[in-house]
């Protein structure tokens, strides 16, 4: 394959050309309620050529038929020439790498029969159904894939990678009359079959939570001191800050650049934030990004001060900074864009108890149903919450939606515990029509002095 790709590269007359080819074997088993919804095995393959002429724009050609490889190199070349860009696009230097980066498959999922995968997820699903007859519906999904990946560029980089991925997810829906609540469990790793054994406890907890939420009151809307559990704190830092640190937001946008000037204080000295694409075994982990740049641990906020951002080769060149290995493509169907990998809030000190002991009335927000950011404004939905009363975790509450302004909220983080953990959840991130890209987040418990919690408000 590599010989074929390097030969095809030579057809391009562009200043820079790269070719990615992927072949992905995947299986998916979905169980809904008491029955199997579907068990399928799929094979997806294709490639993507990107070409860049001096004073041209990006020409991108993606395809599913490998027979079209040579024609698509020519097409990308033509497209680049058809787009005039002034000033020209420049790429930051990255030393050429030749690597066989075959990640540990941890029990190659391709060797496991579909029936065994079905049995595994059906057992987890049964765990949820067994919790209560209030659990009226469940959805449990097993998904795995192994991608074989080839990458060459005209600067001499040649990569061959094997990328495994396995995810489990469970949704339990509890219902009583018109009240419907749900609990979620999600596990996602860049590993294999061994890593998803003995996971019933999380599925059981999700179903129990859905049932408990039937009796929980909706949180009363208002501004509270809020403590985020590590899962939600991770989603928060991804949504509220991570997207702003992606350099494609600022690199050709002077007012955005002014807002994100390195050296600007974004938080109190307790706050440290980074993105680590090289952390072992996590969903966002890869040895090289989709431009052939090695991944790394990039500090974004150090002791409250903005110190870095996430780059592709193009954004790094424009800003005169170094590439960070964050140019990622969802698949061969897309060109790489600046994305997060494994984003985290660094460890602080102390425990959850230390964070809540001096809060007379507050909200302990746990788990994540999802999050969205519109740059300065974000919203994230906790899976559930508890009121904090007189320094203690009190009653369960539901519909906990946190909304806020990034700059204000980061600055209101006043206490970070020392109980860091990676989320290791499935799901992923969406940007520019490329979703879901595997990412994960990590954080300890985090306290925000004051945040708006949505919910019913008194008339």
């Amino acid at each position, binding site marked *: 394959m590599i010989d074929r790709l390097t030969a095809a590269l030579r057809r391009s007359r562009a200043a820079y050309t790269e070719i990615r080819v992927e072949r992905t074997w995947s299986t998916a088993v979905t169980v809904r309620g008491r029955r199997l919804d579907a068990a*399928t095995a799929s094979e997806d393959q294709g490639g993507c050529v990107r070409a860049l002429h001096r004073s041209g724009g990006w020409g991108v050609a993606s395809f599913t038929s490998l027979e079209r490889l040579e024609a698509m190199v020519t097409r990308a070349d033509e497209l680049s020439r*058809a787009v005039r860009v002034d000033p020209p696009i420049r790429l930051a230097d990255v030393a050429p790498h030749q690597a066989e980066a075959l990640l540990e498959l941890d029990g190659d999922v391709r060797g496991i029969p579909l029936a065994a995968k079905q049995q595994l997820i059906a057992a987890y699903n049964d765990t949820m159904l067994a919790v209560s007859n209030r659990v009226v519906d469940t959805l449990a999904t097993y998904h795995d894939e192994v991608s074989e990946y080839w990458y060459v560029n005209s600067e001499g980089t040649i990569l061959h990678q094997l990328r495994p991925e396995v995810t489990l997810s469970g949704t339990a829906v509890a219902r009583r009359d018109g009240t419907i609540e749900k609990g979620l469990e999600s596990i996602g790793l860049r590993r294999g079959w061994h890593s998803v054994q003995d996971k019933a406890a999380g599925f059981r907890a999700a179903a129990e939570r859905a049932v408990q939420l039937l009796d929980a009151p909706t949180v009363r*809307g*208002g501004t509270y001191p809020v403590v985020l559990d590590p899962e939600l704190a991770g989603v928060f830092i991804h949504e509220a800050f991570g997207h702003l640190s992606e350099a494609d937001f600022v690199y050709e946008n002077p007012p955005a650049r002014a807002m994100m000037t390195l050296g600007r204080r974004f938080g109190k000295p307790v706050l440290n934030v980074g993105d680590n694409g090289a952390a072992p075994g996590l969903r966002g982990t890869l040895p090289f990004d989709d431009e052939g740049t090695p991944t790394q641990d990039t500090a974004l906020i150090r002791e409250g001060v903005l110190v870095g951002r996430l780059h592709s080769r193009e954004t790094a060149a424009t800003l005169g900074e170094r590439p960070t290995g964050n140019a990622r493509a969802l698949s061969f169907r897309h060109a790489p864009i600046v994305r997060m990998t494994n984003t985290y809030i660094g460890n602080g000190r102390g425990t959850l108890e230390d964070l809540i002991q001096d809060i007379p009335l507050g909200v302990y927000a746990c788990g994540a149903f999802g999050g969205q950011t519109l740059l300065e*404004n974000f919203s994230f939905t906790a899976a559930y919450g508890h009121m904090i009363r007189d320094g203690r975790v009190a009653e369960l509450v539901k519909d906990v*939606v946190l909304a806020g302004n990034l700059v204000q909220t980061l600055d209101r983080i006043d206490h970070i515990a020392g109980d860091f953990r990676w989320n290791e959840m499935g799901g992923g991130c969406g940007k520019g029509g490329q979703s879901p890209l595997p990412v994960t987040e990590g954080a300890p418990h985090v306290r925000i002095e004051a945040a*708006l919690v949505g919910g019913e*408000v008194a008339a």
Partner: protein
Amino acid sequence: MIEQLLDVARRRADGGADGLWRRVERTSVAFEWGRLKAAAVTEETGANLRVCHGGRVGVAGTTAAEAAADALVERALASAALGEPLDLGFPPATPLPPLTTFFAPAAEASLDTLIRLGAGLLERLARDGCRVNVAIERETAETNVANTAGAAGRYRSTAVAVSAEVWRIAGDDVLVLGDAFEGADLPGEETLARIVDAIDDRLTRALTIVTPPEGTLPVIFTPPGLEALLLPVTQGLSGKAVLQGISPLGGQVGETVFDPRFSVTDDPLLAGRAASRPLDDECVPSHVTRLVECGVVRQFIYDLETAARAKTRSTGHGRRRVFGKPVPAYTNLVLGEVARGERGRDQRWGELGGGLVRDVTDGLLVDELIGVGQGNVIGGAFSHPVALAYRIERGEITGRVKDAAVAGNAYELWKRVGGFGTDARWTSGRYAPSVRLDGVSVARR
């Protein structure tokens, strides 16, 4: 390809098979931060096959165009071996409704034409202190769907998407607003002018920032702002949710659940819409489905599998991709009672709020919310911060509000509608006017 697949499947599967083969070519141009940056093409071919064997159903998909039919059939049979018993009847051959899905101007537009289209829009949206992103995408597709019961459909289609986004960053205030066109043909001059006008109007009104109101108030949701209110309803009207027992609308057919002026129709036969098609992806001919009529729940949407499980007929809402099995999905949703002839083309979008603003003494106009689709959507409860919203005081928009959130229950709010605007328009796959809903919780921080 599809005939060959079905030939093999017919010999191997005792309960028949159906399949979809689709070839898509897409050309796109992207203008980033005010300048043309990239042009891209995509060529994608894939096949999805479903077999019934031993009373069980299996599916398999592939993009490996050279792959032998035998291998795909083999994988579908392996999937069926694990499947649940299901009596899936494949529809017989039926005459298809006439419908134009292929528009030559869109198909034949050159790269230069697409670049000029984007550059023109960019130029008209240029404003001091703002940055503009524009994306143009043109797709041509060939779809071939058939089953072993003799039904088949083959059609070519075109789709065009134009989107524009204006960014204004002043200090830490980030304002993003945009608009988009999606259709089966290139947009005309009038449509482009409306995109520019709509962005201009909202941008101008957003420059003044005012304090948000607070309390239980009348809120006008614009067509894009309605998403949070309509999502629970469309999820609840899916036969899949009804089967699962999680739809609050299950068992309510024939009941008045909504305001008597509230109607929802799904129409796959509208000319000029990219989602329109003569038959669905399971060979069921397209027809108009009345889901809610004058507040009364009439029908849920089904594909073949959910219909078989619910012991009813498919409503022609099967959608399938290359991978995975078909799922029920809407085509073109139409909210309210609009004369059919008018629906195909855009009406005047008119003023923001479609004439509803003047009757509101103290309230909010919501154009975009953050986080729609998160959480327990189907239950109807929602709570979202605003991404773009304006305060209404004494019948006039007085400025943009920030740092506010709206909450309520969609099912409760739709029981009494304060008014429908005159500004009905397409927003992605939905045709709707602005709607005034009373009694929405508005919180500020």
